């Protein structure tokens, strides 16, 4: 019946079969790779007012503790963003020696003093978000358990502008809640990011897990896995 199909169609079944498998694999691969927060949320770095708060300088170079600004992290779910007053405490006119040395630096921080003068908050953009059907991430519980800031936020002290380091997906939450020993550190090092940075390198994983298991026992922790722990 050569009138119906030309000869080249003999190869069609193979081509269709191959094409189907290939298309399926492509679709699965694309969905697998891109349909996750790991693809579209990690690296989120919104433009902050005034060029942003430089964590690299403050927490890194100057060695300020996280809790100097995020004051409620040990007592509240929310790791609060400080008010202008906290900024102004250092950045008031004439307070820092560096202002006398360089006008450029002074100009960069002018927006703090302006906001303070106008009695208006600075509109920082939120970087780390969870879905609205999830309770606020309880920072106090995790800090008390000895989970380092670095586990969720990465080494903020190395970020000139804060970006989202982890996916914050439910699978990512569960990964830690099922194996919490991976992220437990000595309690006095929770906010000391440079001290624990080494521990979180791949080659030290065994050591970190050994320590973590000890901490998990000592601190009598029980990372919950039930729905109600995180959802309303």
């Amino acid at each position, binding site marked *: *019946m050569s*009138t*119906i199909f030309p000869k080249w169609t003999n190869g069609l079944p193979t081509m269709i079969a191959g094409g189907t498998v290939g298309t399926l694999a492509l679709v699965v691969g694309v969905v*697998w790779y891109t349909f996750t927060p790991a693809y579209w949320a990690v690296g989120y770095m919104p433009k902050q007012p005034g060029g942003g708060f430089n964590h690299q300088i403050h927490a890194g170079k100057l060695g300020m503790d996280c809790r100097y600004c995020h004051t409620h992290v040990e007592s509240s779910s929310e790791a609060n963003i400080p008010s202008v007053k906290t900024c102004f405490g250092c950045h008031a006119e004439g307070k820092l020696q560096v202002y006398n040395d360089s006008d450029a630096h002074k100009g960069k921080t002018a927006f703090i003093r302006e906001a303070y003068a106008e009695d208006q908050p600075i509109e920082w953009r939120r970087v780390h978000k969870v879905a609205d059907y999830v309770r606020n991430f309880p920072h106090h519980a995790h800090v008390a358990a000895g989970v380092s800031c670095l586990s969720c936020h990465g080494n903020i002290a190395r970020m000139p502008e804060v970006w989202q380091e982890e996916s914050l997906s*439910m*699978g990512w939450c569960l990964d830690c809640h099922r194996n919490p020993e991976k992220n437990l550190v000595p309690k006095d090092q929770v906010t000391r990011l440079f001290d624990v940075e080494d521990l979180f390198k791949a080659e030290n994983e065994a050591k970190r897990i050994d320590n973590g298991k000890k901490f998990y026992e000592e601190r009598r922790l029980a990372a919950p896995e039930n729905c109600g722990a995180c959802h309303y």
Partner: protein
Amino acid sequence: MSSLNPDQATAARLAGLAQAPDAPRAWDPATGDGSLVEDPAVRAPLVLGNRSFNWVTETVCGYAEKGPGKWFWPTFFLTSQIAALMPLMILYLAITGVGVWGLNNQVDWAWDITNFVFWIGIGHAGTLISAILCLLKQKWRTSINRAAEAMTIFAVICAATFPGIHVGRIWMAWMLFPIPNANAIWPNFKSPLLWDVFAVSTYGTVSALFWFMGMVPDFATLRDRAAKRIMTGRQIGGTLPLIGKTADEVRAFAYGLASLGWRFSSRHWLNYEKAYLMLAGISTPLVLSVHSIVSFDFATSILPGWHTTIFPPYFVAGAIFGGFAMVLMLLIPSRELFPGMKDLITMRHLENMAKIILVTGYMVGFAYAMEFFVAWYSGNAYERDVFLFNRVLPPFLAVEGLDGQLKYAPYWWAYWAMIFCNVVSPQVFWFKACRQSIPVIFTVAFLVTIGMWFERFVIIVTSLHRAFLPGEWHMFYPSLVDILTFVGSCGTFLTLYLLFCRFLPQFAMSEIKNVMPQASPHYRPPASTGGAGPSGVHHAPNKEGV
């Protein structure tokens, strides 16, 4: 083909020895249309009218090529309008939410799951006919298996819609399947609801494969006929609008595509037979497993009325019961509407199916009785109350409760409708006259279909609508959307079936030819004794014939 292998029956007819193709045949009081042979030494003919191989090909292909008649497109228009209700209602549901159904806090499954079980049950006749009857070498299945398989596929399509749309947030329906996701959420592998997803999707896949594979040789016949007509210039149908090709060119292409390069070689047939047997083997456990797993949705719960070990066999018997009723409801009108089909689907086919309905109806009736027995015998007060006061007792037999109020079952009418349709009505098939009367068979099949819908409604709604505390008692009333979605699913089913009748081979031609007398190596052409029916199928039985 006929020039190489002279068809004996055709030769006999051309010689004036056999009767003309469509000569009216009288109803024989002894054998009905000729197929109701009582003599156990004689095999009843499966194709009547002394038909030739050529006639089978011409008739079956003719349905797909020339169309069934003037009634078709108006009927199709009507059913497709009804079918359109379904996507409309689903769209409304998706936009608005499941609140558009009559569900309430207590009755959170109602028509959605009733329809799901109803449709998936109907599909079972197709698999039973194509798989189990094939393995048991029941030759009468050959002329009804294709239609029953088609019906299975369409019923599974209708069925699979309902679990998909009852989830509330339809865009999350993919979570029915265990798909890896960033939320690390999996369906509960210990839940029969997940097993159900696997059971139904396996069933749909295997049934579709079985159906399609059986059609491949017939597609090739349709392809070759269209190609031959193109070459000889005697095409059926003119040029199609928009495409600019003639109908036969489209047919040759489409059937050619579907026939997968089938060339009727012996090797093809050998592989085909093997594959057919393997698929029959794979499908056989599915006949039993699918509805067993559907029944687990209920049986593994702890709800009185659902928590019953009899459910799996009871559901399977019910599915075959309802499935055969639907096959009859489709084939009886087909027989009347398609010329020549009465010779392919004989009275014996209908009678056999009526007998299956009688048997499976008894199984279902036995299950109904056992549920009662167990409710009493177990001494479980909740179980007993579900049956007595949720399902059975009509208002005129109401019993005074401890609080002095009259207790009766609010859904008694549904329960008794089910009993009448499923248990009482098939009893007429004890009588030969009823078993062989087309109006009676059709009426019973219709009643059984209604009864089987009510069975699922009774199981689901009457068990749910009263929980353990009287404060949780709520009646279920269907909303218009409930009703129209179901009506729409019936329309979808009929529309798909009509499309099947119009464009696909309704009969497995090679299989029918296999069970005709001419296929036997011992077949002798009818002796030229003259008179009516020289092939002598009913008067001078050829014992060596099939």
